[in-house]
């Protein structure tokens, strides 16, 4: 086993963190308690020694006193006084034995009456004394004295007394020691709490560092409680700073790799800002990491407010937010798109139709979603227009085709028919065929204009020639309805530049409409005014007129007036739309002034000397 491995194993056995403080506290407490116990034991032993010494001194003093008195009293044969003195001394000094034995036997004085020899004291007795017995048992103090009695012999005085330890004194000493120990433990506990509070932050930071070593990077996981002290606050501040630096580093790396950087000054940023569709990058915290200028314009937010904003504040649509969340969660791995109507400023009007395309993408800082926003309003308007065109065209074509089929069926019927009826049927077929031709021609012209493929053959157009031809074409139709058709030309009409056929078509439609919507007996007049810049061709009629609400609508394709009288008159609704487009292609315009039941005046303005 290597040294390093051994150190690591030993290190794991050693207390760490908070346990360091706990172990230190317990150790100090153990030492203090041991010292207090040793002190208490020493104090008890010292006390016991003192008590024993004092008892021994007392017993020895009593023995010496009794020996002196015994020598005097026995010399005078006053045994009774000696016995009385022994009883008194024993009672006062707590003696259990006070015995005087003559040499050669015979107990003269004893606290036990049964030991005392009866009879008078001998006059003389021997001097030789027997050796005293072994020492006193534990807990007893014994004193032995040889008492020489002058002229009569020797005696042996034995005095014993028990050693009594004062219990109360020992208990007080122990209580004092215990109190000191308790106070010491309390002080130790307070010191421990203080140290723990002081070192708790360091311990928590140490654990956080251990987590970092194991791969943890989340600032939330590595943070420590702020109430642990200033070190904890500084550690958390350090984590926040590191997190910000890491995020910035990731952003810069992402921007460098992906070519998307918010700030200006790089090709990638310029490219992003030059995009006409909005671009948002949303991170897994549902925060907008990047927004280009077009995104701000399309979402009707300030670009500065978008960067770093919550997704819900940046994008109002819950559907789009849901798709983005789905992309960020990994549920949706493919590109998904949704089209929404964007509310106008203040939510009052509809600003347009936006298409949101959401695609998940891998980023340096986790999962991200790319959101591309496109304004498809014009496309949708064109789609609706195209669909309406097809529907209206189908309707317009069906009516003459139905008439043609019915009259052909009638002509093919083998049943005999009158010549006038056959002629009428053929006329209807011819009329409807011309109507079909006109509708198809108008539709083709409108389609060409909308597609931008209408060819304009620039040439000199002499209106003073074109308009009389037009008048001639419509004179028969005017006569049928008893309409007075007039043409007023100034002495000199400027030559305009443009496509003669297209201008003829536009004027044809305007004049044809005037005749169509003017009742029998009415009037239609065509007049021309000119200046060096433009020529105005005015077509006035005494027809049914156009309400103010419809004066702009009648120039839309397939629009038919809601006036009930118009419903009885056939028409494709393309004539005025086509005429205006043609004139506008020439740089001019068509305007209308009209009153219901009073008539209308359409003015075709054509610039002089200019054609598109």
């Amino acid at each position, binding site marked *: 086993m290597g040294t390093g491995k051994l150190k690591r194993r030993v290190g794991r056995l050693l207390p760490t963190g908070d346990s360091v403080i706990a172990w230190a506290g317990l150790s100090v407490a153990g030492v203090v308690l041991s010292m207090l116990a040793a002190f208490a034991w020493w104090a008890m032993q010292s006390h016991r020694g003192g008590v024993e010494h004092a008892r021994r001194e007392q017993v020895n003093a009593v023995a010496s006193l009794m020996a002196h008195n015994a020598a005097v009293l026995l010399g005078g044969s006053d045994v009774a006084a000696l016995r009385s003195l022994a009883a008194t001394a024993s009672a006062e000094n707590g003696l259990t034995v006070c015995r005087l034995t003559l040499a050669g036997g015979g107990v003269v004085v004893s606290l036990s009456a049964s030991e005392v020899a009866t009879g008078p004291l001998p006059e003389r007795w021997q001097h030789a004394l027997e050796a005293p017995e072994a020492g006193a048992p534990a807990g007893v103090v014994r004193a032995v004295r040889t008492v020489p009695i002058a002229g009569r012999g020797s005696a042996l005085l034995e005095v014993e007394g028990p050693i009594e330890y004062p219990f109360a004194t020992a208990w007080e000493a122990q209580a004092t020691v215990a109190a000191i120990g308790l106070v010491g433990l309390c002080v130790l506990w307070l010191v421990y709490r203080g140290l723990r509070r002081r070192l708790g932050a360091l311990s928590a930071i140490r654990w956080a560092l251990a987590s970092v070593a194991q791969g943890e990077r989340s600032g939330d996981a590595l943070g420590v409680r702020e109430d642990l002290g200033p070190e904890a606050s500084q550690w958390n501040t350090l984590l926040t700073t590191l997190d910000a630096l890491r995020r910035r580093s990731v952003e810069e790396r992402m921007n460098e790799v992906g070519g998307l950087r918010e700030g200006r000054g790089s090709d990638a940023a310029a490219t992003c800002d030059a995009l006409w569709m909005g671009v948002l990058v949303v991170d897994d915290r549902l925060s907008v990491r990047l927004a280009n200028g077009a995104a701000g314009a399309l979402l*009707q937010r300030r670009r500065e407010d978008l960067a770093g904003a919550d997704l819900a504040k940046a994008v109002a649509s819950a559907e789009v937010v849901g798709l983005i969340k789905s992309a960020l969660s990994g549920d949706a791995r493919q590109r998904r798109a949704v089209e929404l109507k964007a509310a106008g400023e203040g939510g009052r009007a509809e600003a347009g139709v936006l298409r949101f395309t959401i695609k998940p993408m891998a980023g340096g800082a986790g999962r991200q979603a790319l959101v591309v926003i496109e304004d498809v309003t014009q496309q*949708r308007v064109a789609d609706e227009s195209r669909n309406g065109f097809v529907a209206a065209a189908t309707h317009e074509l069906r009516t003459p085709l139905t008439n043609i089929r019915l009259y052909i069926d009638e002509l093919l019927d083998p049943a005999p028919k009158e010549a006038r009826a056959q002629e009428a049927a053929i006329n209807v077929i011819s009329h409807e065929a011309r109507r079909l031709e006109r509708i198809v021609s108008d539709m083709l012209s409108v389609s060409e204009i909308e597609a931008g493929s209408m060819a304009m053959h620039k040439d000199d157009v002499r209106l003073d020639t074109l308009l009389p031809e037009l008048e001639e074409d419509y004179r028969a139709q005017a006569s049928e309805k008893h309409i007075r058709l007039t043409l007023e030309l100034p002495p000199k009409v400027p030559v305009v530049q443009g496509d003669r056929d297209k201008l003829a078509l536009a004027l044809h439609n305007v004049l044809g409409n005037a005749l169509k919507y003017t009742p029998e007996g009415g009037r239609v007049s065509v007049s021309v005014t000119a200046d060096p810049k433009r020529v105005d061709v005015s077509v006035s009629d005494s027809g049914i007129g156009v309400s103010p609400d419809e004066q702009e609508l009648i120039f839309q394709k397939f629009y038919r007036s809601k006036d009930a009288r118009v419903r009885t008159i056939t028409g494709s609704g393309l004539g005025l739309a086509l005429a205006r487009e043609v004139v506008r292609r020439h740089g001019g315009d068509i305007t209308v002034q009209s009153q219901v039941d009073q008539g209308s005046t359409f003015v075709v303005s054509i610039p002089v000397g200019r054609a598109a």
Partner: protein
Amino acid sequence: MEIQERAQGAVTVLKPVGPLCADDADGFRSRCMEATARTLGRLVVDASAVPYADSRGLEVLLELSEALGQAGQSLKLCAATETVREALELTELSHLAEHYEDVPSGVRSFL
């Protein structure tokens, strides 16, 4: 200065009539910015009725171009007169706008 406005599909067409000069230019700028905000930038300027523009007029065109450019959009100038085109080219501002021969062409650019 009269500024005519009409809608062509979802596109707003603004047609200033008269010289683009001085205070008129500021009014034109305001109308353009208002229309841009209202239509998310679907705006076409029909310059066929602008005979000329002074320095303030050109400056307004520059400001409009920059404002639209920040949103990834561009100023669409249709049927500009020869005088206006020459003024833009002489001041090297011609590249700031997309030029179209006529309004329908400008409108079709939104498709």
